[in-house]
């Protein structure tokens, strides 16, 4: 349709957001404009999805040299791994504009800016470009949190900002190290992510650089012990921001590990993979247990989101096709379930003016549609068979068991913790006796209800008939694992019989 589809998807929201920031427009105009732009991005994303041919290579490539003397370029492209994160963000963001109406103009402008920056980070095929978008996507979050957040917004804002900036500056050093190594080995300057994948660095300096990257991504995901910013930021942020952080931005952290770290540091990564996987296991256990104890449902969801991100991270660190496929699948599932739960929490908070679980009760009888949708998203989040969460988590646990039995066992165990806090919270908020705060709770309006229907359908379809999605993911993951996995580790693919052949051809 367009020659520069990805660029249009990235810069349409950014330009629109900047115009909204500076133009003297009303709140409603801004909201409608924001919704329109995010819908336009959604339409473009369908175009991308339809045109994507799952070759396992980068598609929709755009390449414009930026700093030729250093090989830095404006280089975009997507493959089966980034496609789904791209789709998740494009599909989910219009929802925010529909649901939250009582906000100021700058709020919508910032949402558009963050959407553009996130899409940029997902599509970037050049390290410097990736870093630019990675940093830019923090700025709107900083302003949304600081301007429109809850009562303790300032400490939360500073915490998330300093944490993430510290992480990303370490990443900057590491990515320069990568490029310089590439220059030393090949005599050519390049910051292309693909070319960095040709490197296989090992040694002490490489390990330090690896940790530079990993700390940056671990902060964004977040992984234990870099998660302490999360409960404050997620709780104090306005619901739309929490949703963006949890549903999409956290995934870009995982995506960074897959795209940048593993290809460039195959040997070193394999050496520390078990350590990283245990960090993932600890964060899922720890955050799950912390979630049980929460009295504030938004904070509980924050911990639950972190706990599930731990599972996704384990999927990446297991370094096999099943786990990675499951990870990509679970990235979408987590966005549509746990991410969407934050939207419900936002609605709940807006209408009841409380975040305490104990203040609520008996909502199911007052708002059956809301309760139903909430239940579907919640069950997908805990991984009930028949929902999208099941497929993703099943594949991840399968892969984790192959990687290391204990990691697999712990991953499975943490799902039980997830069921505990989720169902307990659901029982207290939606059943039991009605409380004062929940007395006047109104069900979702027709528009709101209709807005959620596609997401609910997506959860169910992805849970019952995953094949069309897996078909798009697998070529990329298989090829990726074949290129990345250290020799000696045998790979067998259970999901699709066509893949072993590809594996052997690519493994050299």
């Amino acid at each position, binding site marked *: 349709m367009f020659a520069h589809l990805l660029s249009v998807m990235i810069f349409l929201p950014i330009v629109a957001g900047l115009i909204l920031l500076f133009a003297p427009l009303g709140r409603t105009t801004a909201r409608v404009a924001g919704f329109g732009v995010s819908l336009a991005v959604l339409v473009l994303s369908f175009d991308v999805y339809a045109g994507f041919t799952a070759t396992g290579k980068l598609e929709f490539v755009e390449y414009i040299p930026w700093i030729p*003397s250093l090989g830095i370029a404006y280089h975009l492209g997507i493959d089966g791994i980034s496609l789904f994160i791209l789709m998740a963000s494009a599909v989910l963001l219009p929802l925010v504009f529909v649901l939250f109406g009582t906000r100021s103009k700058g709020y919508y402008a910032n949402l558009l800016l963050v959407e553009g920056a996130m899409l940029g980070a997902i599509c970037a095929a050049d390290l410097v470009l990736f870093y630019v978008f990675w940093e830019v996507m923090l700025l709107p979050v900083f302003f949304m949190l600081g301007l429109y957040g809850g009562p303790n917004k300032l400490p939360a804002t*500073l915490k998330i900002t300093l944490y993430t900036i510290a992480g990303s500056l370490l990443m900057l050093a590491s990515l320069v190290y990568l490029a310089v190594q590439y220059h030393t080995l090949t005599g050519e300057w390049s910051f292309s992510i693909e070319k960095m994948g040709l490197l296989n660095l090992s040694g002490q300096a490489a390990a330090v650089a690896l940790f530079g990257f990993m700390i940056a991504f671990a902060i964004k995901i977040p992984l234990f012990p870099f998660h302490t910013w999360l409960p404050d930021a997620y709780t104090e942020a306005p619901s739309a921001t929490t949703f963006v952080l949890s549903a999409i931005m956290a995934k870009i952290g995982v995506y960074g590990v897959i795209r940048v770290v593993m290809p460039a540091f195959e040997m070193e990564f394999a050496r520390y993979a078990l350590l990283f996987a245990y960090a993932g296991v600890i964060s899922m256990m720890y955050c799950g247990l912390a979630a049980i104890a929460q009295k504030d449902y938004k904070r509980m969801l924050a911990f639950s989101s972190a706990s599930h991100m731990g599972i996704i991270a384990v999927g990446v660190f297991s370094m096999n096709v099943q786990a990675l496929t499951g990870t990509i699948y679970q990235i979408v599932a987590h966005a549509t379930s746990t991410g969407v739960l934050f939207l419900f929490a936002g609605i709940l908070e807006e209408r009841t003016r409380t975040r305490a679980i104990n203040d609520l009760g008996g909502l199911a009888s007052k708002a059956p549609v809301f309760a139903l949708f909430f239940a579907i998203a919640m069950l997908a989040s805990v991984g009930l068979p028949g929902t999208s969460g099941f497929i993703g988590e099943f594949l991840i646990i399968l892969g984790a068991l192959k990687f290391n039995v204990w990691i697999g066992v712990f991953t499975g165990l943490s799902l039980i913790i997830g069921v505990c806090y989720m169902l307990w919270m659901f029982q207290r908020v939606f059943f039991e006796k009605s409380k004062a705060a929940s007395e006047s709770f109104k069900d979702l309006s027709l528009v709101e209800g209709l807005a959620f229907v596609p997401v609910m359908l997506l959860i169910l379809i992805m849970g019952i008939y995953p094949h069309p999605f897996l078909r798009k993911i697998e070529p990329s993951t298989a090829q990726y694992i074949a290129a990345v996995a250290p020799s000696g580790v045998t790979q067998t693919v259970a999901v699709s019989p066509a893949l072993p052949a590809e594996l052997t051809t690519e493994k050299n």
Partner: protein
Amino acid sequence: MTNDFILFFPVVLVSLGAIGLMLAGTCRCFRLEHAAWASGGLFGLAFLVQLSATLACDHSLYNSLFKDILVVSPFSKAAGLVILGCGLFSVCSSISYFKRNNFSGVEYYSLLLFAAAGMLLLTMTRELVTAFIALEIMSLAIYVLVGYDRDNVLSTEAVMKYLVLGAFGGAFFAMGGAFIFGAVGSTKFHLIGNFVATNGFSASPALLAGGFFIMVTLFFKAAAFPFHAWVLDVYDGASMPITGFMATALKTAIFAVFANFLLADAALQQGWVNVLFYIAILSMFMGNFIAIGQNSLKRMLAASGIVHSGYLLIGLVALGSQQQIPGSVIAYYLAAYAAGTLGIFSALSFLSGKGEQWKNFNDFKGLAKTNPYTAFAISIFLLSMAGIPPTAGFMGKLYIIIAAIKAGHVSLAVLGIVSSIIAMWYYLRLIVLMYFHEAERSFVEEYPCRVGMVSTFVLVLCVFAISLYPIAL
């Protein structure tokens, strides 16, 4: 010869303009506004001449003028561009500053031009005596400018400190030059370099001592550790536009001559690389810790100037391995830093009010609520200084880090990054105050003139434009 003249023309233009303004100032009908516009026009014209020289005359890498006393290289051209740009924007912010404060005279603008002439000369010089003369032309003009507000105690204190210390610096430079001449028999940089290359860096005690004295002067002028203590008081006492001019143009000139001196020969740079290494680290961290403690915005910016000197020193450390890269890296970083710093001082020039009554962090609480555009501009400048993409400051830092890692100084690059993490604290502090707090006073009357506003927003554009400009290595 014609070519020589064209390359030298900006210096001629600026110095003749300065003299002309000084003479015209005696005429009663020549008012302050005329002087402001005339000096702005001269800076603009010289900038365009320099730009055309930069774009057109790059057929040979080095053009020597006047028998090797002056040398024009791409690096000196770029530094000259930065200095002239700084002069232009300083004139703009002076115009808005003196709408509120009435201690200016025609000589003020003339002195700005004199200082710029000295700086331009300093970027081209390849010889110690010329360097000394250029340094003094620049410094004398700056001393007067720092103390221009004679009724102000702070300003008087500032000029006292700067003059005494600066005089020591000048004397050190002259003495260092004499020692080096005694050892080498020449004051030309490349002959000194040749001497060091053949006889070794520590061949003669006079050479060591001379080099030491010259380095001390340069560290002092660049506000690097341990000669940084004057910066806070002098920057605080000088008027806003002058502080901005000193922080950017003066630093550019000093680093230009610094790089030229070290570039003369790799052996000379190698002799000093260890010292530069530690001074870079200490400048960054010392500057950061001083900046964290400040309540005055001006003092914070002064301290952050020390940090940026540290980054530039990283560039100098990386100079040895490949001579081409760091030169352009340093010039780029100077341009990026100049755009951000000048922008802030340009905004402060019209925000600080009469007698600079508002210059503390807390005075800018809630600025974004009443003046969203100015707050946005200041945020962009701060983000650029902090090195957040997509601003020029980020690209500058990226190039510095690439140069450092390429030269094998990974630890220096990492420490530079740690220092910019610390720096986030005080840059973000102002943004947080401007955006996330309620306004305690109205800022409405702070727009006495358009020039300041326009130049501030032009600088915002510069910050983004510079970030997109690819450096050629």
